[in-house]
């Protein structure tokens, strides 16, 4: 699906669904708007999309995955990837503020205090702050990776030391979660003493978020990502791998099989990954 086809599937309310005919959700709307910024999109469509996002921002500064959910979640980081001058400066600042207030439950003050009282030491991976998908749950790779990218973008216009500190903590969180095979899965490298394998989509996302980490520190991860790309069976996963590897200056060998874009999100992501291969990685601008 090319960009004009994606634009054509914009809902009347201004947002985009994951799949044709569905209701508007925050995540695909953000990805389509980003895709419109790397190809010549449609100005009117873009503004309608931004207006939908501005209108669906919650009082607390965050976004819910879709309007029928009354809870801000990790998709706030996705929305905060959009340029403040397009999303709106206040909207953007409130989103960053919301993100700064979130942490995985396992590193929350209440949980740490409870464990201290019980004499329980922090478990592996419970020492660094990351971000959860949903407030009240543990931190995982995907929401942490997008929070890092969003905060880094915010830092480019105004540097705040507390934000720097969170970014640095989150990078440690990601480095802590590398699987034995070198890549990342959802965020557990070992389950009950058994090594867990990595996934291509999360490996790509983590590499993207760690673009400022020296390549020497990521040797195994980059090799794992290249191996995963060769065997990849998913267009979405392949796009994240391309974006992640390109962030470290590595060209990707595409898999032998043709990967089908099955959704609006897949197609928007492919546009973003292809743009990165042409030298424009919108997540790092």
């Amino acid at each position, binding site marked *: 699906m090319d960009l004009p086809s994606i634009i054509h599937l914009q809902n009347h309310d201004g947002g985009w669904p*994951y*799949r044709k005919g*569905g*209701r508007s*959700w925050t*995540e695909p709307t953000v990805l389509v708007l980003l895709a419109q910024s790397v190809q010549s999109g449609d100005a009117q469509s873009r503004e309608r999309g931004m207006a939908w996002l501005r209108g669906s921002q919650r009082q607390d500064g965050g976004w819910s*995955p*879709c*309007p*029928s*959910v*009354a*809870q801000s*979640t*990790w998709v706030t980081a996705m929305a905060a990837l959009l340029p403040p001058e397009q999303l709106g400066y206040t909207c953007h600042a409130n989103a960053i503020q919301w993100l700064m207030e979130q942490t995985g*439950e396992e590193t929350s003050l209440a949980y740490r205090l409870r464990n201290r009282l019980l004499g329980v030491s922090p478990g592996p991976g419970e020492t660094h702050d990351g971000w*959860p*998908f*949903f407030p*009240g*749950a*543990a931190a*995982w790779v*995907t*929401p942490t990776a997008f929070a890092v990218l969003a905060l880094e973008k915010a830092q480019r216009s105004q540097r705040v030391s507390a934000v720097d500190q969170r970014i640095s903590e989150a990078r440690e969180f990601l480095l802590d979660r590398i699987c034995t095979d070198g890549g990342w*899965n*959802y965020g557990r490298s070992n*389950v*009950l003493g*058994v090594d*867990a394998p990595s*996934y291509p*989509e999360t490996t790509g996302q983590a590499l993207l978020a760690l673009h400022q980490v020296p390549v020497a520190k990521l040797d195994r991860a980059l090799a794992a990502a290249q191996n995963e790309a060769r065997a990849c*069976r*998913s*267009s*979405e*996963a392949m796009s994240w791998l391309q974006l992640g590897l390109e962030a470290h200056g590595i060209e990707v060998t595409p898999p032998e099989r043709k990967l089908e874009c*099955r*959704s609006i999100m897949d197609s928007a992501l492919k546009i973003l990954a292809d743009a990165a291969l042409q030298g424009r990685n919108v997540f790092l601008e």
Partner: protein
Amino acid sequence: MGNEITRRQALTAAASCIGLTRCSLSGGRPVVPRVSIVRAGYTQAIYDTVRRLLVEHRVDVRGKRVVIKPNLVEFDPGTTINTHPMLVHAAFEGFRALGAAEVRIAEGPGHRRVTLDLADAAGYFATIPHFEDHFTDLNLDDVSRVTLSHPFSRLNSVYFPNTALSAELIVSLPKMKTHHWVGATLSMKNFFGLVPGGIYGWPKNVLHWAGINESIADLHTTFPRHFAIVDGVVGMEGNGPIQGNPKPVGVLVAGRDMTAVDATCCRIMRINPAMVQYLNLAAGRGRLEEQNIQQIGEPVKSVQTAFELSELFRNIRL
């Protein structure tokens, strides 16, 4: 904001199709749940086997909306992790043949968000004609909030996919597997896939913080209109539900009462169902006892085979 459905409303809707509920009454006394064990393989014969199971259990779905919920977890070219596509197709055809108004296949995988790619790799596209037209990704479906009135877990309300909430029968089609957190994953644990990743993430970690066993019991009571067919043709033992080893058993286990079906599966796996916490929560010990379940088809003893258990669950061995 958004749609909200109370558990009372869900239960009222359930009562309107009493023929589908798990506990029917006869003369004021609860009917003993019936559970079938039938031998099966991944061959064409599985289509007939499933049809016979549905007839045997008098599953009346004429004019009703049916949702088939397989267990789709990981990219796996073999048959160990995911529900076999032939069983999914056999159930799909079986319910259509019984006159269901609509049969949808729906799943919301817990770790991977590339659901359709998973389904493709698992052979669903190749086995089920026009698969994508009949499939709903529950992780990304539209949702409504359901208030849990007397939850076992710490959850007060949960967003659920509208496809699941509007179903008049949800058919749990899990794989017979051991599970590193709860001992065994069968028809009840399979309902974790009804919780939308698009809202709660991958993994659906909110359920872990709320109590895994308690959340399983909550899901069971929230969706009372169900039927189960467990894929025990080839199960998984050891470090399930993903990293275990194939365990051929050669059976399907089916029934309307998921606690009874899962208790029977446990006995086949030589697991003591009374030691599986979520079964106790959902059914109470008495209802799990063998004499309180009417067994149809193969006797448990004839197909019983000990599934290897992880260290953590050695104490649940029957």
